[in-house]
């Protein structure tokens, strides 16, 4: 693999820390991802951004954002050193997208941690990385895609209804500004 600054023995997505400690599981995670496997992987610095068309409230983006922040802020506990160059946090993306505000919030959170705290984070597209999923893919220190994955990008999509014409115009102006921000990324 070219341009990889990691150990030759490691591969993208495989963190080399000891993940054997199940004793302190965050109960808040269980309310979002009720899977011991997800909790285990999160403790290893491996997050899955997986969203469905029914994910209208951006739960997946918010889950990854909260978990990323928790993992990074609690690094060096239990001897872990996640988020550094030798042990990057990894986000696997298999997402059809979701609310643009939640996607932007996660993207900005990653870029903030990268800029001010030196976070190393790899993003890997698996299956679909569409819309907001493609946006998050761009946030990685290293960006990967599996050979059969599909990426899709597009502009901001919005519906206008239920309000006055003036309110629709205001919403349109806000979405134009959001679209302009996305183009710069």
């Amino acid at each position, binding site marked *: 693999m070219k341009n990889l600054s990691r150990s030759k023995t490691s591969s993208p997505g495989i963190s080399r820390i000891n993940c054997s400690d199940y004793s302190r599981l965050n109960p808040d995670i269980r309310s979002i991802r009720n899977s011991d496997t997800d909790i285990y992987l999160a403790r290893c610095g491996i997050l899955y951004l997986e969203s469905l068309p029914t994910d209208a409230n951006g739960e997946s983006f918010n889950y990854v954002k909260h978990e990323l922040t928790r993992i990074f802020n609690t690094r060096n506990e239990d001897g872990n050193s996640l988020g550094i160059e030798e042990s990057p946090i990894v986000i696997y993306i298999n997402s059809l997208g979701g609310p643009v505000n939640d996607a932007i919030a996660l993207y900005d959170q990653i870029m903030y941690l990268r800029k001010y705290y030196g976070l190393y984070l790899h993003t890997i597209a698996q299956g679909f990385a569409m819309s907001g999923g493609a946006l998050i893919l761009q946030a990685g220190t290293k960006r*990967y895609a599996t050979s059969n994955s*599909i990426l899709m990008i597009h502009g901001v999509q919005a519906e206008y209804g239920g309000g006055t014409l003036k309110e629709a115009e205001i919403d349109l102006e806000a979405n134009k500004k959001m679209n302009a921000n996305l183009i710069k990324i």
Partner: protein
Amino acid sequence: MGIKHKDLELELAGNDKYFNAQEALKCGLIDEVI
């Protein structure tokens, strides 16, 4: 959004644009296909 390849230049005007992994690599959307 990181589009570098001239043949696939795109303005985010609302139309969906799909890429397979090799096209995404060529366009600069990813760093490596694995």
